C-alpha cells in the first residue's frame, strides 16, 4: 500500500499541494477554453482531486524502477507509458464529468469540452511527471531515514560488542584461577606471589583503560596479550610458550582494543590447556599494502571431545569486525591436523599522519615515539619478514 495512506498528515499535505494544479486547470478552461469562471472551477476542482489520487499510482513504477540501478531507456519507457495511461484515464473521467454537469442543466459551454481534450491531456502528462519526481524524492528520503536508523543500530551493536569484549576480558574464571595460583604461591614462593599480583593488577588496569577507547595502538594491544599470557604461564608452567612477532613499524597501527583477547583466551582454553605437553601460542602481526594481518596460532589435541569450544569468543570478534569495518575486515579460521589458526584482516591505519596507508610507503614510523626509536624505517617487505620475535619463557 502507498505510504501516504498510512499517514493522514502527509496525505492532507499532498492534497493541499494539488490546489495550485486545480487552479491551473481552471485557468486553462477559463482562458483558453473560454468557459465561464464558475463552470471552469466546477469542472476543474473535482477533476484535480481525482487526478491527485490517480497520480499516487506513480509510486508503483517508481519503486519498480529504482533510479540507481535502472537504465535511462527503461526509466523513460516505464514512466512515459504510465503517464500516457494516467492522462488517458483522466480524459475519460473528465468527459464523463463534463457530461454529468451538462446533463445537470449547466450551460452548453460544456459541449465545447472536446476542444479542451489535447491541452488537458498534455497537462495530465506533465502533472504525472511531477508526481514521478515527487515519488522519487519520497523514496530516497525514506531510504536515507532507514540507513540512519541502521547506522544507529550498528552503533548500539558496536557498543554491545565492546561491553561483551570487556566482560570476556575480566572473565571471572580467569580471575578465580589466577587468585588460586596466587594463594598457592604464597605458601611456597612469596616473591612469585607478589610478581603475579602485580601482573594481574597491570593487566586489569590496562584492559579497563584501553577497553574504553575506540582504537588503540597495536603495541598496546600486544602488551595486553603479553600480560595475559604471562599470568597464564604461571598457571600452566612450561606447558605454555609464547611467541610474538611484529614488525616495529606496525606498533602504531590502530586496532579496536582487546580484539585479540578472546582469540588468545581460546588458544589457551581450547588449545594449550587440553594438551599434556602443552605447546606454543604464536601471535603475529604483518601487513599487506593496505591491510593489517593479525594471526594467532596454537596447537590443540586432535582427540579432544566435541563439546569443547562453543566459539562465542570468535563469534564476538567476527561481529565486532563486521560492525566496525563491514566487508573491509575479516576473520578466518583454519583448523586441522592439531593446528588452529585465527587470522584477522583489517584496514591498515598507522597513527603517524604523515605516512598514511600508502602502499609504497617504506617509511611508516612506529606509533608511540620512544627514545632513540623515532623515525625508524620499516623495510618494505615488513609484511613477510617479521623483524622482531620475542619468545616468552615461563617463570
Amino acid at each position, binding site marked *: 500500500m502507498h505510504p501516504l495512506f498510512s499517514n493522514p498528515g502527509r496525505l492532507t499535505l499532498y492534497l493541499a499541494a494539488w490546489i495550485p494544479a486545480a487552479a491551473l486547470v481552471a485557468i486553462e478552461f477559463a482562458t483558453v477554453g473560454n468557459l465561464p469562471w464558475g463552470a471552469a472551477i466546477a469542472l476543474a476542482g473535482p477533476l484535480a482531486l481525482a487526478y491527485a489520487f490517480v497520480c499516487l499510482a506513480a509510486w508503483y513504477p517508481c519503486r519498480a524502477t529504482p533510479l540507481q540501478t535502472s537504465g535511462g531507456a527503461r526509466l523513460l519507457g516505464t514512466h512515459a507509458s504510465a503517464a500516457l495511461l494516467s492522462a488517458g484515464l483522466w480524459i475519460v473521467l473528465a468527459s464523463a464529468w463534463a457530461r454529468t454537469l451538462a446533463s445537470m442543466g449547466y450551460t452548453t459551454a460544456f459541449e465545447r469540452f472536446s476542444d479542451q481534450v489535447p491541452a488537458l491531456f498534455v497537462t495530465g502528462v506533465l502533472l504525472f511527471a511531477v508526481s514521478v519526481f515527487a515519488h522519487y524524492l519520497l523514496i530516497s528520503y525514506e531510504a536515507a531515514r532507514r540507513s540512519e536508523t541502521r547506522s544507529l543500530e550498528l552503533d548500539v551493536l558496536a557498543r554491545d560488542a565492546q561491553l561483551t569484549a570487556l566482560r570476556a576480558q575480566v572473565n571471572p*574464571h580467569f580471575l578465580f584461577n589466577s*587468585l588460586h595460583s596466587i*594463594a*598457592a604461591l604464597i605458601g*611456597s614462593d612469596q616473591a612469585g606471589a607478589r610478581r603475579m599480583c602485580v601482573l594481574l593488577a597491570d593487566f586489569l588496569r590496562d584492559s579497563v583503560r584501553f577497553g574504553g577507547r575506540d582504537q588503540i595502538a597495536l603495541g598496546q594491544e600486544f602488551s595486553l596479550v603479553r600480560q595475559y599470557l604471562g599470568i597464564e604461564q604461571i598457571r600452566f608452567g612450561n606447558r605454555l610458550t609464547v611467541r610474538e612477532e611484529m614488525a616495529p613499524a606496525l606498533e602504531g597501527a590502530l586496532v579496536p582494543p582487546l580484539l585479540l583477547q578472546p582469540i588468545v583466551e581460546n588458544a589457551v582454553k581450547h588449545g594449550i*590447556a*587440553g594438551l*599434556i605437553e602443552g605447546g606454543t601460542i604464536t601471535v603475529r602481526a604483518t601487513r599487506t599494502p593496505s591491510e593489517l594481518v593479525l594471526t594467532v596460532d596454537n596447537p590443540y589435541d586432535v*582427540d579432544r571431545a566435541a563439546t569443547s569450544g562453543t566459539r562465542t569468543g570468535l563469534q564476538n570478534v567476527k561481529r565486532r569486525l563486521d560492525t566496525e569495518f563491514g566487508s573491509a575486515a575479516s576473520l578466518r579460521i583454519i583448523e586441522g591436523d592439531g593446528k588452529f589458526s585465527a587470522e584477522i584482516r583489517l584496514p591498515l591505519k598507522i597513527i603517524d599522519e604523515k605516512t598514511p596507508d600508502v602502499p609504497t610507503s617504506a617509511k611508516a614510523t612506529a606509533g608511540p615515539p620512544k627514545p632513540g626509536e623515532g623515525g625508524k624505517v620499516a623495510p618494505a617487505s615488513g609484511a613477510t619478514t617479521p623483524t622482531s620475535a620475542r619468545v616468552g619463557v615461563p617463570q
Partner: protein
Amino acid sequence: MTTPLRVAIVDDEAPARAILREYLGLDPAIEIVAECLNGFEAVQAVANLKPDLLLLDVQMPKLNGFEVLELIERDVAVIFVTAYDQYALKAFEVEAVDYLLKPFGPERLTQALERVRARITQGQPKPEHKLAARLRDPRSPVNRLLIRDGANVHIVPLSKVDYVEAQDDYVSIHAERRSYLKEQTMGELETALDPRHFVRIHRSFLLNIDRLAKVETTDKDSRVAILRDDTRLPISRSGYARLSELLGG
C-alpha cells in the same frame, strides 16, 4: 580412624596441586598416594593404587573429570576442585562428596574431608558404577569413545569405528582392525550415538553406515551387510527396515 585417608590429587596446573599438597599437609591422617597431571594418570592411579579419595579437577587434557569417573571403578570418594560453578549440579548427580570452588581456604577443604570420613565410616552405599556414563548430556554430541583397558585408556574417534558387537554386558568396538571391549550395554551406547551415522542392523550389531559397501540377500528373508573391508554382518528384519529408512531418507 587411625588408618590414614589415601588421597590422589588430580589437576593439570602445578600451583593448584601445590596448594592442595600444602593444605593436606596440615592433616596428619592424610597420605597423598599420587599426584596426577591429567585424566589418563588419574585412571591409572585409581586402578593401580586404589586411593580412598580423588581430589579431581574438571578441565584437564585428554579426559575431563567426569570422563575419568566414567572409566574407573567407583569405590573411591570424589571431591571436585574447579574454578567453574556450572558443573556443581552434575557433580551432585554423580554423587561427588563435595565441590570446592577455587580459590578456597584450608578450612573449606577440612570440611570436605570430614564429609568423606563420615561417608566412609557410615559405610554409605557406593555410587553406582557407570553412573557418569548415563548422565551424559544428551544434547552434547559424542564424537569419541573412551575405553579402559586395565590401567590404560583408549580414545577412539567415532569416525574410526567400523561396527560394534554386543557381548553380554560388554560391547566390542571394532575400529581400525582392532577391537576394544567396553563395559556398557548396546542400548546405552546406541542412545549416545548419532542415529544418522550408526544404525542397529541386528540385535547384536551396530553399524557405522559409512562402512557399508553393499547388502546381500542370501535367502528370501535373510540379508547380510558387507563392509568395505569385506566383513560380513547379519541383518535382522527390523534392522533392515531401519537401514532402509536411513538410506532412503
